[in-house]
């Protein structure tokens, strides 16, 4: 397996982002085991320390937990947490930008609902 690592973010952060993506997409479910540090390091040709750091930060954010002798597992509360943080991010960053745009374009709530209905019929 090979991966493209971007140079503008530290690798461990990119790795974290990938794991989060997998959780959000449902590829990782609560209670699922993450591949071992060794396996990820070997498959992606990374230093195990880098992988450990990513896992550690995920554990600090309580998205994964370490089970003694077994490895890292996705926590039950992880999906909740992720959904929460995604929601917060949307409401605090993306939504205000959308509002600004709506304002500029002169669209209001009923325009939006109409567009949504048409979209549902056509889409």
């Amino acid at each position, binding site marked *: 397996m090979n991966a493209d*690592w971007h*140079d*503008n973010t*530290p690798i461990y952060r990119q790795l974290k982002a990938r794991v989060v993506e997998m959780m959000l997409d449902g590829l990782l479910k609560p209670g699922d085991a993450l591949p071992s540090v060794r396996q990820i*390091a*070997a498959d992606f*040709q990374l*230093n*195990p*320390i880098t992988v450990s750091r990513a896992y550690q930060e995920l554990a600090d954010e309580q998205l994964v937990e370490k089970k003694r002798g077994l490895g890292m597992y996705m926590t039950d509360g992880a999906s909740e947490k992720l959904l929460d943080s995604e929601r917060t991010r949307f409401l605090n960053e993306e939504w205000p930008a959308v509002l600004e745009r709506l304002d500029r374009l002169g669209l209001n709530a009923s325009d939006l609902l109409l567009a949504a209905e048409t979209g549902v019929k056509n889409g």
Partner: protein
Amino acid sequence: MVDTNLTDFIIDAKNLTKRYGKSVAVDNISFQIPAGRIVGLIGPNGSGKTTTLKAMLGLVPFEGELKVLGLDPRTQRDELMKQVSFIADVAVLPRWIRVREAIDFVAGVHPKFDRAKAERYIQNTKLKPAMKVKEMSKGMIVQLHLALVMAIDAKLLVLDEPTLGLDILYRKQFYQNLLEDYFDENKTIIVTTHQVEEIEHILSDLMFIREGKITLSASMDEIAERFIEVMVSADNLAAALALKPIDERQVFGKSVMLFDTATSNSSADAVKALGEARAPGIADLFVATMRGTYA
């Protein structure tokens, strides 16, 4: 799990020097390598990197102080070799030896050889017990050598251009196997290679060597913080040059500059303000610091 009787550093060099007649191959270098690291020793041909490795392995005499696993490679080599393993080159296995003879021999003479591990590894290859090395392709010879090396529980593994001349499949497998089945926090690996990109993310530490001197010795974390590569927008060119980049190149008509926040009179923030910033690849860093050697 860590042996607290050892000195802190796996390798501790002070004023290490090696002369060949009048020329100096290794010029008064000092460095320390702690356990659990994967260190890349990068340098052009003739830079002294192979000589440094040879000194560590007790293959050549030297001046200065060098302790490997707390032992002096000059006087305690036999003891040292029980805990150090190395692959000096791709093709040093004796051509007459058969796979089973090689395994039998190492099993017989090495106290830390795990025969079952070597055989497990070989089962996943096309190697057969009766095969002679002279019948094997380069890639297969490396597989055999790696099988032997990985089955030895050594505290230090030195790899000198281990994948030189191999095709990409064998090269990828080489590092994959090392990471999957061999490396752990009690082991240290030193690797030299020309294929810098291939081990870029495997390394934890980096040492650049040039004309017998160490020009850079830092962990990958430190390097990520210290070196910044910026795609400088045209209006910032003058300001950028004032911050004294260590290298500049043109990419698609734009200026890409490399800054060393430790040596130039700039801060990371000032540099990042110049344009799109990112961490440089080791290859670019290497070329930037080596300019002048190839000129």
